[in-house]
């Protein structure tokens, strides 16, 4: 009996989602029955803000984790330098747009050196070139060795961190410029345009990647590599060059995520900023299933909603926000050891 249930759970991940939604609805309805009207009004506002901000946070996380899952899906490389490329994007964007005096506190400023869009494009191109170089010099000689890849790429992350430390200093006293100033009111919540822009960008990249992988010739070749590397090589696909291209795409996605997220949150760019996004992208990617783009998108929204729910419903444990996200990941893995959509890119159409 239990085996049959387990088999069904393994083949149909949607069942878990439906059960979870039903459980949440049941809990909510019992609460609704026993609560006072004032409580209900407060809860409604909270639910509204959780819905909006969770959606936006999920979009940002999806943008963050897409590159990570793409490079794993195509060439089975767990790329720990993803966080470093995220940081590189943010720092280069910041260095191109803002001229600063050391130690000066900048809150809002006009772009001084370059147009913001031009700076974005330049930073992304630089990150893509950097990703290709990293692939060629470091990852390619040790392909297939999981442990060596992990250690070498985390080493790259540390090198980037120290270079940024030398070049820009340890303190996060500067901020990345805002793309679109101002905010808009949606359902009584004031949301900044920047956040919406990053959400839209993540949607665009998700759909674009999907179409690229299913329609374009290079995308099809990438899926062929994911399916069987040697046979793809026999079919005349230049696997090395394509893996390098994949790494470049992943790196540029990381850089876009770095620029958009840091500018949307008005966050400081500081040398240790690459750890947190790296962990979050792990949690997301594992939750969704390594190498599955659909799963990554799903995982991003689950983690985003969980984090925002913790911040709004229990503000006193906001320190435990990361722990909650990672705990959800561990719980999901206990039920499904390969994530919700534990498939690889080749299987998705």
């Amino acid at each position, binding site marked *: 009996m239990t085996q049959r249930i387990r088999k069904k759970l393994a083949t149909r991940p949607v069942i878990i989602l439906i059960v979870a939604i039903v459980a949440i609805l049941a809990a909510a309805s019992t609460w609704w029955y026993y609560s006072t009207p004032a409580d209900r009004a407060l809860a409604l506002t909270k639910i509204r803000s959780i819905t909006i901000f969770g959606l936006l946070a999920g979009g940002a996380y999806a943008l963050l984790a897409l590159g990570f899952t793409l490079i794993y899906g195509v060439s089975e490389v767990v790329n720990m330098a993803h966080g470093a490329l995220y940081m590189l994007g943010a720092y280069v964007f910041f260095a191109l747009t803002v001229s600063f005096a050391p130690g000066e506190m900048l809150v809002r400023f006009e772009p001084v050196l370059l147009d913001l869009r031009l700076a974005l494009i330049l930073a992304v191109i630089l990150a893509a070139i950097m990703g290709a170089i990293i692939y060629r010099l*470091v990852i390619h000689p*040790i392909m297939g060795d999981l442990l060596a890849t992990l250690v*070498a790429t*985390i080493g790259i992350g540390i090198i980037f961190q120290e270079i940024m430390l030398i070049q820009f200093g340890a303190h996060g006293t500067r901020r990345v410029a805002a793309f679109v100033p101002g905010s808009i009111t949606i359902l009584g919540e004031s949301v900044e345009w920047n956040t919406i822009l990053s959400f839209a960008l993540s949607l665009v990249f998700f759909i674009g990647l999907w179409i690229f992988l299913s329609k374009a010739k290079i995308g099809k070749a990438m899926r062929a590599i994911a399916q069987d590397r040697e046979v793809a090589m026999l079919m005349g696909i230049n696997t090395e060059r394509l893996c390098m291209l994949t790494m470049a795409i992943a790196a540029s996605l990381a850089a876009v995520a770095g620029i958009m997220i840091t500018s949307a949150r008005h966050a400081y760019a500081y040398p240790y900023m690459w750890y947190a996004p790296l962990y979050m992208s792990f949690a997301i990617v594992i939750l969704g299933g*390594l190498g599955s783009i659909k799963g990554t998108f799903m995982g991003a929204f689950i983690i985003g909603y969980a984090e925002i729910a913790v911040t709004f419903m229990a503000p006193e444990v906001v320190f435990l926000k990361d722990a909650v996200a*990672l*705990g959800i990941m561990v719980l999901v893995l206990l039920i499904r050891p390969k994530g919700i959509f534990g498939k690889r890119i080749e299987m998705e159409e």
Partner: protein
Amino acid sequence: MATYFRRVYLSFAEHVLDVPPRLLASMIFLILLAYPITKPPLTILYVLSVANIMAIFAASWDLLVGRTGQMNLGHALFFGTAAYATALFCKFFNLQLWVTIPLGALIGVSVALIIGFPCLRVKGPYLALVTLTFPLILISVVKYFREITGGEEPIINPRFFPGLPMYGKQLADYYLTLALLFVSGVILYKIANSRMGIVMVSILDNELASKACGINVTKYKLLAFAISGLFGSLAGAFMTHMGSGASVNYNTYLGVALSFQAIIIAIFGGVGTIYGPIAAAYILVILDMYGLGKIFGWFASNNLIPASIIQIESSMHWIMYTLVIIILIIKWPRGIGRFTTDKLKDLQEARELEERGKHIWKTYKRKKEESEHASTRS
């Protein structure tokens, strides 16, 4: 020139590396035991104590990953849990050190078993990334219970033998960690080469096949977690009593950098050989904490590099260290432990071949002489 180096290397290999490994290990241990006779400065003693601790830590990681193949990237979890447990026992219950360290180790083992259960289900990169997250969860828990754990402030622990003078304390640290290293190194090596170790290697090679052979895979995986957790947490518990308290930081207890340091040391030493990580810990920790700084200082004092680099020395130090690691991983993936054993095997084979060749040459000569004899007689 190259031939000269080759001859030097060959004579070195023939005369120094040729002693039995057990004798070599005990000789090195005796040298380390006698080293404080030369009255080294405090910093060197401290560096050597840290090297001892890191050697135990990396060797315990090696037993888990090199033998069973359970890819554990969060080994700092055991280290940090034991460190915090001993520190909190010392702070709140005023227990003696000789009680708190075993208690901390016990808690470390139980944590290892607790996380071992969920880790049985996941494999490969999933396991690696899941184990990486456990210390992170613990870090945010430590930060949350600020009143008890002090948050990011370290908990300062009493040192071993607080009555001694400064140098005596450091000497006591050195000898205690060296004794711990000796005992745990021998135990780990014996376990790795016993029947249990062979079973663990079979799980690493092919889990399904070893299951089919009637091996209880679950039991051995959990055992590997428990043993590895025991020695990892012993290292952590000793480390808290060496001057720096338990704290949450990037580089110290519970940090990702600590887990990765163990992995780097084990890879450099050769994954799966217990003695490799122990040797590599000495090389890398001394290079990391003492050697690189000296090298930079020498270059700067001879005006070979600008003195401004000294100001950013810690950054340059990290960059150099990681570059060395990356190059070593790419160019020399088998590690020094396996490299040495390979060379020794080559040497033995060469000697056997040589002897066989001598034997063949002798018989050939004898036969030739006999035939010549016969021909001359006839």
